[in-house]
């Protein structure tokens, strides 16, 4: 067992983990943050996407010990004071989710794209950037639209 301290959604969480423990299992089962989902065992689906130090990673492909001393943001960390994050709002307004299982990963992946300044004005850009996240319900069009909307809104309010 190894002792780690991870700042998750702004709170420092100390725990003992097995060295082989995956970050996604640590988040879900040790810390009770079940908003992050597991959809595959080949790092293909992106349902487990979270941010580490602001960058999106597939948490099924990272060991919990690798997050030691770093900042992790999960879907539970986005809404503040009962107000949804602009990305969450945009997904709702554009019907960007159906079963919702891919959604936390989609949103975290999109957030990191927006924060990194990835060009997202063009739908084609968004589609390419989203290649690592699979959705089986929506056919993607409304996800793309949601991200486009949110990116526009977040960037214009950031530059205002």
């Amino acid at each position, binding site marked *: 067992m190894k002792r780690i301290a991870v700042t998750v959604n702004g709170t420092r969480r100390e725990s003992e983990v097995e060295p082989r423990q995956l970050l996604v299992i640590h988040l879900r089962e040790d810390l009770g943050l079940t908003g992050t989902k597991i*959809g595959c*065992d*080949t790092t293909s689906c992106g349902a487990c996407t979270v941010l580490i130090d602001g960058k999106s990673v597939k948490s099924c492909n990272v060991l919990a010990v690798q997050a030691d001393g770093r900042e992790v943001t999960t879907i539970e960390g986005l809404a503040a004071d009962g107000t949804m994050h602009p990305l969450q709002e945009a997904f*709702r307004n554009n019907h960007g989710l159906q*079963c919702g299982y891919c959604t936390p990963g989609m949103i975290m992946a999109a957030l990191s794209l927006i924060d990194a300044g990835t060009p997202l004005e063009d739908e084609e850009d968004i589609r390419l950037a989203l290649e690592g*996240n699979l959705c089986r319900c929506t056919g993607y*069009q409304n996800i793309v639209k949601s991200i486009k909307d949110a990116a526009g809104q977040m960037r214009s309010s950031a530059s205002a």
Partner: protein
Amino acid sequence: MARTEQAQRYVGGGVLRKEDPELLTGQGKYTDDIVVPGMVWAIVVRSPFAHARINSVDTSRAGGMPGVIAVYSGADLASEWAGPLPMAWPVTEDINNPPHWPVAKDKARFAGDAVAVVVAESRAQAKDAAASVEVDYEALDPVVGVEAALRDGAPLVHDEFGTNKCYTWPLADGEVDDVFAKAPVVVKERYVHPRLIPNAIEPRAIVVQPVPSQGEFTMWSATQVPHIAKVTLSITLGIPESKFRVIAPEVGGGFGSKLQVYAEEAICLAVARRLGRPVKWVEERSENYLATHHGRGMIQDMEVAATEEGKLLGVRAKMLVDMGGYLQLVTPGIPLLGAFLYAGPYSAECYSVEFTGVFTNRTPTDAYRGAGRPEATYAVERIMDALARRVGKDPAEVRRMNFLPPFSEPTPTPSGLSFDSGNYEATLDKALELVGYDELRKEQAARRESKDVKQLGVGLSTYIEMCGLAPSQVLASLRYVAGGWDSATIRCHPTGKVTVLSGATPHGQGHETSWSQIVADALGIPFDDIEILHGDTAVVPLGMDTYGSRSVSVGGVAIHHAAERVKEKARKIAAHELEVAEDDLEFADGKFQVKGAPDKAKSIPEVAFSAWTAHNLPEGLEPGLEETYVFDPPNFTYPSGAHICAVEIDTDTGKTEVVRYIAVDDCGTIINPMIVEGQIRGGVAQGIAEALFEEAVYDDNGTLLTSSMATYAIPSAAELPRFTLAGNVTPSSTNPLGVKGVGEAGTIAAPPAVVNAVIDALSHFGVTEIDMPATPERVWNAIQNAKGGSK
């Protein structure tokens, strides 16, 4: 913003989904998110062989590993089963129906068949120990394809039958052979519909909590069918149904793959009963590829007879259907859901189809979005294009001359069913206009002329489907063992709030929103004051769950009727309180108003309060305002539409790109356009993927080669185009809401639209056929073969 008390029209409006805030913030609870104190983990050990005798299972080494509580072989658990896993659709009297035990005892019949179960304190410990279970297999020759399985001397999947044939189910009407013998034109083609892997992004998961002293069990399962699971598993396990509760919490997509009662559900119940402890099992994706049922898998020999002009005279088709290693819940019946649709929306004098189910050493097949109807539609729409080529007409024209004329009342069709309503030609015209058909044809001609590397093709699919499963008596005539009704209960609380219990169990479709819209309009209750409960057999006792695009046209209609019953009773109370005759009241703006004196009125919440106090009720009326309705539809519903796809094919590489996709659908009255469009988009995406990318590929040993998300080509956003959607509504004559259903339209319509477009792009080279998925390799080969052949 405060709402006025004016009648709100929610139905037809783009109301945002009630479900979303919870799902968007990570608060939605799916089965894998459920933790029960004292819970142990189960892992299933699976056969790596497609076909093998199990000589022995040695559990001793695994049993001694850290954290391991128990290891069970099939023989160890045999005493747990009061019966085999359920198979609810014996389509013929003489069907070969093998017993399907949750854990195999003597033989493994597909790669992935369960052979042992390991239970440990933690998931990791169970997994470690699973690798140490020693199974002595004697590998047997497998049968992998349906045609090979029917050959003399083929290895037998189930020895006791002496054949791999499961059943033959025929349906014929009219003088078929005579019509074909005399017809001036007969077109015959063979279509191979590959097996598909449904791939809901949420894998399956199960948690069982027993109460040993009471003999009670609660099972949470990522299922589409908690009600069906309760009935059937109580039989398999011998648990009294009255002591068994099944809950489908949030479910992350199903697409038919969770319309199933699985071995792992039975296993978890058995283990929980043996150990007296809660048990959890969560499917890994690689297991999902092997142990969650597959879809499609059919070879279709499709024929039409026609006049020289292309007017259809008859349809004759013979199908070989891959059952896989066992019959799951409705495996044999899946093709029957398409059996009546082999004439599409067209008229014909005679009709004959025959399905032969065949066992193979592969994962069992069962429902996958569309279930039988995509196969039928694919055959019909492909052959309509072949017929058009044969008679030298435009595919739109051949369809037009064969459409059933517009109708709004039940109308008989070639297969013997009566369709509910439709205006197929108008729908096609709308699609042709939206796609810019004439322009596309001109552009296509120009590219052919200039020998452009990128050739353009246009594909039509004017589909019809059969939804709203189903009139119970029709199901009886098809030998399905359950009914097709669904239930709704509307409970009006004294505080004005309303709870609705629905027997339809959603897994992403947004029932809570749509049902609230129906109730809000019917009872004049604010949308936000309505709470929809579903998916828990203890809360909603009566239900037939969600599949086959049945929710709105059965469950939604049940809600409509329950609301009418609420209003009937409420009218009595309102009339009594207002001291007028019932006939003097009209229900308007969400209230019972005295005709001519609208100020004298009672709303449903006011009546609900009176019904609760029961201080002043009409003589003989029971207190309370709660009504249930169980709706058994009198007919199916028949959504239809015209989808047109334009593709560009790079003739150097064989790569196909969908450059335009237009869907014009008639799903009847629309409750929520946003949700309906979402269903169509998702379905079309899956249908395009079926046409171009996806296929479960097996090698000769019966090993699944496309066994992970890394090798099975689920499209990402980057591989899919935008779609343009439009509607052409004809209200269904089957139910008072006029709804038809929309969940499967996309997967039914899209594959032939895309494949027809691919062939159309290459037809001037002489290409007339290509099987799904039309991968670059297949397309390139088709071009080369056609060019080679034309030399």
